[in-house]
C-alpha cells in the first residue's frame, strides 16, 4: 500500500513537471539570445536582457497598463453592482422579486459569441467604440456574480442587520456599512475570477477597439505573433512573459482563495 502510494506520488509529480515544462521554456527562452532560442541547452552565462529591451519598443507596457485599467475597473464596478443585486434578491422582499431573478438568470443562457455582433453595434451606437468605456462597460454585466452573491447572502447571519435596523439605520446604510465589509469571503474569489477573466479577454477588445494606443495585452501580443518571421521568437516570448506577470502575481498571492473559489463555483 505504501509502495503504491510512493509510486503514485512520483507519477503525479512527474506529470506535474511535464505540465509546467512549457512555462519553464517560456521563462528560460525569454532570456536567451535570438540565435540561441531553439537550442535546448541552459547556458546561463549567455542569458541576456536584450529581448526585454526590444519588447519595450513594441509598446507592450502601454498594453499592460490598458489591461490593468480595464480589468480593475470591470472588477470593482461589477463587484459593487452584483453584490447590491444579490443582496436585494436574497434579503429584501418586494413585488416582482422572482420575476426579476428569473429574468436575470435567463441571460446566463446567452453565450457571448452569439451576441458579439449586435453588442458591437449597440456599444458603437452609444459612442463607446475605440475608448476605455467600450472596453469596460459591456463587460460589467453578467448574472453569474449576481447569482453567487445571492447564494452567499442567504447564509449571512440575520442578527447583524436586525441590530442595525434597531439602531435606526436605513436598509441601504445597513448594506453599505455593515453587510458589504463582511462580504469578503465572496468578494475575494470573485475578484480573482473577474480580474483574470477580463485580463484574459481577447475577442471583445479585438472587436470593439481599433486604436493601437488602447490595445490590451492579449491583442498586442497576438499582433506581435502575427507580425510574421521578422520578429524573433525570443522577443515574442519575452513579451508573453511580461504579459503573464500580473496573473502570476494574482495566482501566487491568492492561490488559497483560488481553490476556495473553485469549490464555490464547482459544487454549489
Amino acid at each position, binding site marked *: 500500500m505504501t509502495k503504491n502510494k510512493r509510486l*503514485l506520488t512520483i507519477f*503525479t*509529480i512527474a*506529470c*506535474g*513537471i511535464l*505540465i*509546467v515544462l512549457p*512555462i519553464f*521554456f*517560456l521563462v528560460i527562452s525569454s532570456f536567451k539570445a535570438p540565435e540561441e532560442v*531553439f537550442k535546448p541547452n541552459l547556458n546561463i552565462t549567455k542569458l541576456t536582457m536584450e529581448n526585454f529591451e526590444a519588447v519595450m519598443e513594441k509598446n507592450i507596457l502601454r498594453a499592460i497598463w490598458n489591461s490593468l485599467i480595464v480589468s480593475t475597473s470591470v472588477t470593482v464596478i461589477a463587484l459593487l*453592482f452584483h453584490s447590491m443585486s444579490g443582496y*436585494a434578491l436574497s434579503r*429584501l*422582499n*418586494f*413585488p416582482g422579486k422572482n420575476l*426579476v431573478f428569473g429574468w436575470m438568470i435567463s*441571460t446566463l*443562457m446567452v*453565450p*457571448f*459569441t*452569439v*451576441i*458579439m*455582433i*449586435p453588442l458591437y*453595434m*449597440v*456599444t458603437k451606437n452609444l459612442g463607446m467604440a475605440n475608448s476605455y468605456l467600450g472596453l469596460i*462597460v*459591456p463587460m*460589467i*454585466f453578467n448574472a453569474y456574480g*449576481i447569482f453567487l452573491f445571492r447564494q452567499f447572502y442567504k447564509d449571512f447571519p440575520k442578527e447583524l442587520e436586525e441590530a442595525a435596523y434597531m439602531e435606526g439605520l*436605513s*436598509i441601504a446604510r445597513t448594506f453599505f456599512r455593515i453587510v458589504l465589509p463582511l462580504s469578503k469571503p465572496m468578494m475575494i474569489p470573485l475578484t480573482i475570477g473577474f480580474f483574470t477573466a477580463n485580463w484574459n479577454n481577447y*475577442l471583445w477588445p*479585438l*472587436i470593439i477597439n481599433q486604436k493601437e494606443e488602447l490595445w490590451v495585452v*492579449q491583442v498586442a*501580443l*497576438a499582433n506581435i*505573433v502575427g507580425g510574421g518571421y521578422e520578429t524573433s*521568437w525570443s522577443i*515574442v*516570448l519575452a513579451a*508573453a512573459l511580461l504579459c*503573464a506577470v500580473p*496573473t502570476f502575481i*494574482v*495566482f501566487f498571492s491568492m*492561490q488559497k482563495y483560488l*481553490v476556495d473559489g*473553485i*469549490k464555490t463555483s*464547482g*459544487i454549489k
Partner: protein
Amino acid sequence: MNFKRKETLTAYGFLLPNLLGLTVFVFVPMVYAFYVSLHDWNALSPKVFIGFDNYKKLAEDKDWWQSVYRTFIFTIIYVPLLVGSSLFFAVVMNNIKKKFEGLARTLFLLPFAITSVISAVIWMFLYDPRNGFINQLLDLLGIPTQQFLGSTSQAMIAIIIVILWINLGYNMMIFLAAIKEIPTDYYEAAQIDGATGWRAFWNITLPLLRPTTIFILIVTTIGSFQVFDQIMVMTKGGPANSTMVSVLYIYKQAFEFLNMGYASALAVVLFLIIFVLSLTQLRMYSDKD
C-alpha cells in the same frame, strides 16, 4: 413612508444598475441579433430588409456547415479528454502522499495563470515545424519532422492539446474538491464489505461525483462550441480551413467581410445549436436517475 415601501424602493434601487446593464448589453443585443439577421447589411450602407434570405443562404453554405462539423469534432474529442483526464488526476491526487499534494496541485494549476493568447504563443514556439522543441524530441526518437499547426490533419489535435493543457488543472481542482466532500465512512463501510480500490471508485466515488461531472460536462461543451482565442492566434482557421470553427467563421463574416446581417443569422443558428445541445445533455443526464 412605511418600511415595506422603503424596502421595495431600496430593492429596485439596488437592482437598477444590473437591470439596465443586462437589458442594454445582453437582452437588447439578443433581440437585435435576430432583427439584423433579417437584413442585408454591410455595416456602412443602410440595412435592406430581405426576410429569411440569410437563413436560406446559410442552409446551403457548405463552408458554414463544415465549420459546424469541425466544432462538433473538436467538442467530441476535447470534452471526454478533459473530463476523463481531470477526473483521473483528481482521484490520483487524492491518493498521493499528503506531503506532496500541495506541490502537485500547484504544478497542475500553474497553466491556469497563463492567458489563452499566451498559451497559444508558447505552444506555437514548441510546435515550430523547423526547430521547435517537440520536433527536436521526435528527432531524437528517430521520428521525422512534423508540421503540427501547418498540417491539415494535425492542426486541430495540436490546438486541442493546448486547450486541454490550460484547463486540466482547474477542472481537476473542481473534481478534487468534490471528492474531498465524500465522507470517509462510506469507504470504511465499503471496505468491510470487501469493496476497495476500483470497486470503491466505481460504486461510491463515481456516483457521488455525478452532479460535478454533469456540471463540468455541460460547461465544457458550451465552452467548446465557442472556442476561438487559441485558433485565432495559432492558425486563423487554416491550413486550408482545417481549423475553421463556427465562431471564427462568424467572426470573419462579420468583421472581415462585413456581412453583418448574414453573420447575425449564423450567430442565431449557433445559439439554437448550443441551446438544443445543452437541453439534450440536461435531459440525458436526468433521465438516468
